[in-house]
């Protein structure tokens, strides 16, 4: 066993495209790093970015958010909402001093098995380079102090 | 110019994306000068789209760019709102810069230059001066000899130039906009 840093990475994916895409990676037996654990959501539109913050606050080193390509959303527009929110969330993280490179936002369709493997591998490599996420207290504290305010900021801007 | 860059330079300097042209030809169909041009406007657009420097240079040396009178007919009708007249202005500037002016068009260029000289000299257009300057440039001394007396008799050819008083300011304009 080597002593390389093994980051903990969560992947929040939609059921219809990326989850199925990752299934295809499996059926195609394409290998990728085992650091990533997939959490299944109905749609990227469902992915609440407070949950991402919580993940960081509790020691995740990186997060992948992935869903259907634009225009292919199973629910027609959920992924657009997700993308819009991501824009806001990104600047918020930036503002908080969290390295936004720790979040990988991508589109993987049900047919893109190989792409999923690439995304996982690239994310693992880049997070590995960034090193363990030790400043997570920052996120945790920020979250604790500002949760209500934050929620308001982010969601109102969605309208 | 670099092969890769002329399309993007046109895009940034003129605001025209040559790839928007889908070669419908409506510009050529309506251009009054198309018959006399070596490359009608839609063909000129196609040449630029190729991103081939040879085609670009052919256009710099073409009659087309000098024959375009900026009437805006093409722009008015182009379904893609491609500003060909402005593109032609740009190509002319480039052609002057690269000294690749079409031989047959030298009269047109001479006229423009004589015109500007006249304005530079007096601040206003002085027709006798203009024609004299043009003739000096083209050595086309006999042209329009028959029309001048009639113009003169109808009071359309002042003998003395009208002059702008603030010559200094005019001089600044010319020197500061020179490239």
């Amino acid at each position, binding site marked *: 066993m080597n002593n390389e840093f093994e980051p903990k990475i969560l992947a929040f994916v939609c059921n219809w495209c990326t989850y199925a895409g990752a299934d295809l990676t499996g059926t195609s037996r394409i290998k990728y790093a085992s650091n990533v654990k997939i959490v299944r959501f109905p749609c990227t539109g469902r992915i609440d970015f407070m949950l991402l913050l919580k993940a960081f606050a509790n020691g995740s080193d990186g997060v992948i958010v992935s869903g259907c390509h634009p225009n292919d959303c199973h629910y027609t527009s959920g992924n657009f909402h997700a993308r819009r929110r991501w824009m806001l969330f990104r600047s918020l993280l930036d503002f908080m001093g969290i390295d936004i490179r720790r979040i990988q936002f991508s589109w993987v369709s049900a047919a893109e098995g190989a792409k999923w493997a690439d995304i996982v591998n690239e994310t693992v490599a880049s997070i590995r380079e960034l090193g363990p996420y030790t400043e997570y207290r920052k996120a945790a504290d920020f979250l604790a102090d500002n949760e209500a305010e934050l929620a308001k900021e982010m969601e109102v801007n969605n309208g | 110019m670099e092969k890769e860059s002329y399309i993007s330079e046109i895009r940034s300097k003129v605001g025209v994306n040559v790839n928007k042209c889908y070669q419908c030809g409506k510009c050529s169909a309506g251009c009054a000068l198309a018959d006399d041009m070596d490359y009608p406007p839609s063909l000129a657009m196609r040449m630029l789209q190729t991103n081939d420097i040879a085609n670009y240079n052919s256009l710099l040396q073409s009659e087309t760019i000098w024959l375009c009178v900026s009437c805006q007919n093409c722009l*008015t009708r182009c379904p893609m709102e491609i500003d060909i007249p402005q593109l032609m202005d740009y190509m002319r500037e480039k052609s002057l810069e690269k000294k690749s002016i079409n031989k047959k068009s030298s009269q047109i260029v001479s006229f*423009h230059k004589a015109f500007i000289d006249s304005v530079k000299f007096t601040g206003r257009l002085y027709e006798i001066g203009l024609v004299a300057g043009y003739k000096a440039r083209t050595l086309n001394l006999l042209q329009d000899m028959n029309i001048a007396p009639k113009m003169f008799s109808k009071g359309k050819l002042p003998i003395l130039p009208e002059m702008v008083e603030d010559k200094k300011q005019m001089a600044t304009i010319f020197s500061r906009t020179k490239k």
Partner: protein
Amino acid sequence: MEIGFYPGCSLKGTSSEYAQSTLALAKAFDIKLKEITDWNCCGATAAHNLNHELAMALPARVLALAEKDGMTEIVVPCAACYNRLTVTQHELNQDKELKNKVSEILKMPLSGNLQILNVMQFIDKYIADKIEEKVVKPFDRKVVCYYGCLLVRPQNILKFDRLEDPQSMDILMERIGANSMDWGYKTECCGAGFSVSRTDIVAKLSGKIVKDASDRGAEAIIVACPMCQSNLDMRRPQINSYLQMNIQTPVMYITQAIGLAVGLSKEEVGLKKLFVAPTFA
């Protein structure tokens, strides 16, 4: 009433009758057109063919001078000058950087708020309403109105009339009693600035225009641009030799036609200065 006036070079030379008839017409309606102090040439086609910045700076000086004279509105009878001034003001208003640069070259402030009127707009705004009551000698002739290219374009900046089938001149002509006919060459190019350098082209393009007018039995071609007028009128010998015909349809300025209708004399509107003389009037 007093309004600013930019004659431009041609109205001082080749097209002095245009200036003369415009001023006379204004006067007949109690309007004084005051020339902009120390104006310069707008650069016409030549400048923008050769040098974009120069093409902005020359008209900009005119605009700045008008502003300095305290004018808020200027009348520009020459369609080419009108086009240059309007486009320049529009482009400078869009591009603040260029505007500052030009203003700095000129060492003059430039607000960019000037109202620039061509002859048609001027007539529409100040004269049209009173025109019918002033007509003493209806201009009962079959005419075609020739707008040329520069009067109506570019549409997005000039926002003038219907760009393909403009009507404003036709309407004015009808109001002074003329029969303004539909024809095929309202906005086709006459060869513009090629009068001297490529007379062959002007003969051909203007030839088509003159021929269509004459085919349809027009007694006059009505214009509002000195360049159009001189191409169609002064170049008639070349046109006729190109067409191998002898067309004698006169080319009149709209200000001359209206002037005659409201009772100005031939001399007052400078009718004698036309090369192809009208047989009527």
